[in-house]
């Protein structure tokens, strides 16, 4: 009996368990069939250093991989382009190493080069996003310095807004795109000249500044809404940014057309709260209110006024 049990454990340990692990590995490979091919690139670009052969000596030296050429492999496979092979976007010539220096001059594709007219991504309205972007202040910048990729890193970008991600995580993710340039001295062209403190200082007119920063995205005020686009891309001049509180703090809050636009329509008027889609994860005074409490309150106020009116009338009549 004992021998049978031990035999069973041995069988499980030696064959079944590793088979399970391999199956998991196979599943991952099935999910990312590009992994093997990409490994050729990522063994250098996924690291901080790479080996460079020294001409004619047969030896190699370790060189530092430039920050811009480094790929976060974990973020890459989690991103929306994670199923791509590197050569889907980059020249096939990159498969030879050392790379031909002229390849640096290759024109990189923009979003629309792949997504224009693509029925698979029709719901994202890339054409409208492009139209909105062209109206925005960002479009006036030098296109060699600024493109879609300046905000949406093609090697890690993920559609945060269309997932079940919670609002505060979404706000953090989206705001990091803006802050990455505007409070980062590494990007002198867009750097506003100070850190987060400067951004806070520029918004002191906004009550509870930091609270706003934690709960809404920069684009809620700094971009023009287009109902056809889920995330507004028409970044406006600072003079044209939203400054009226009621734009958000009202029943017809613009947050319903921006930050909470993706939430299902049916969730918008449930749970007994006006704009309950917002009150699910946050609470905006003016935009949210309890329907039941309001009704009870208004009925009681009206009854009180009526009661006073009737009492006064009887007093006057019987005087």
């Amino acid at each position, binding site marked *: 009996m004992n021998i049978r049990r031990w035999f069973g454990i041995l069988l499980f340990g030696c064959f079944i368990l590793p088979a399970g692990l391999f199956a998991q590995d196979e599943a991952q490979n099935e999910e990312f069939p590009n992994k093997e091919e990409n490994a050729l690139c990522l063994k250098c670009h996924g690291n901080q250093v790479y080996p460079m052969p020294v001409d004619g000596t047969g030896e190699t030296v370790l060189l530092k991989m430039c920050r811009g050429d480094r790929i976060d492999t974990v973020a890459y496979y989690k991103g929306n382009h994670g199923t791509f092979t590197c050569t889907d976007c980059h020249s096939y010539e990159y498969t030879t190493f050392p790379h031909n220096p002229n390849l640096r001059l290759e024109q990189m594709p923009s979003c629309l080069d792949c997504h224009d007219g693509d029925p698979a991504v029709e719901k994202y309205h890339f054409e409208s996003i492009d139209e909105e972007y062209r109206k925005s202040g960002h479009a006036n910048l030098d296109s060699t310095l600024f493109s879609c990729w300046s905000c949406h890193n093609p090697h890690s970008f993920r559609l945060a807004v269309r997932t079940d991600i919670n609002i505060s995580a979404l706000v953090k993710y989206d705001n990091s795109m803006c802050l990455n340039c505007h409070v980062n001295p590494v990007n002198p062209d867009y750097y506003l000249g100070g850190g987060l403190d400067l951004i806070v200082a520029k918004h002191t007119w906004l009550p509870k500044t930091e609270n706003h920063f934690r709960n809404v995205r920069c684009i809620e005020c700094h971009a023009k809404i287009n109902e056809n686009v889920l995330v507004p891309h028409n970044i406006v001049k600072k003079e044209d940014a939203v400054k009226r509180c009621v734009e958000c*703090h009202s029943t017809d809050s613009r947050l319903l057309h921006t930050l909470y636009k993706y939430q299902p329509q049916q969730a918008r008027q449930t749970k007994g709260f006006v704009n309950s889609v917002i009150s699910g994860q946050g*609470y905006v*005074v003016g935009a*949210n209110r309890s329907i039941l409490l*309001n009704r*009870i*309150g208004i009925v009681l*106020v009206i009854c*009180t006024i009526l009661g006073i009116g009737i009492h006064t009338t009887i007093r006057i009549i019987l005087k």
Partner: protein
Amino acid sequence: MTEKKVLLYPVWIRLWHLLNALLILLLIITGISMLYSTLSATWMRFDVAVTIHNTSGVLLTISYLFFFLGNLFTTNWRHYVIQLPGMWTRLWKQFRYYAFGVFLKEECPFPIGSKRKFNPLQQFTYTGMMYFIVPVIMITGWAMMFPEVIIDQYLKIAGFKTTDVIHVAGAFIVFIFLLIHLYFATMGKKPSTHYKAMITGYHEDETG
């Protein structure tokens, strides 16, 4: 025959009452403006309403502390102590008087004098307002001024939402109280009697 008058409302109470009335009015007006704000509502800017509301709220807290300390260091607190035995009977008597007796020219069952400043209904509502509703509104109001102190979620209920609901419910109660308070103040010998007493401090001793 000259009426015997007693000093029911000393200066500190009158000043507190006046300040309290002004602040409550401002809080109600700005509160309604914020609660029912729409894009087209232009009668008060949201940020202006918020500033006035917050400032009035802070001042109301100071005024409340003044009232609390005033009660603590004078004998005024006695008027807010409800005697539980027979409370419901007294409340009913006073209610009946307001509902019917006043029309039938009956004598007030609990006349006002130096020993009894409030009738049972007044005592019950004033004590409830000043020692329960107003503190709840002030605490929830302060919490919303500093939302970082509010627990995000408790038992799957958003903390800020709950705080706001309690605050607004309290505000409705205060609003209704104010309407009734202003009306019942007209039920003296003349409609202006109680209002005058609140200005001069002196009230006719109805106990004789």
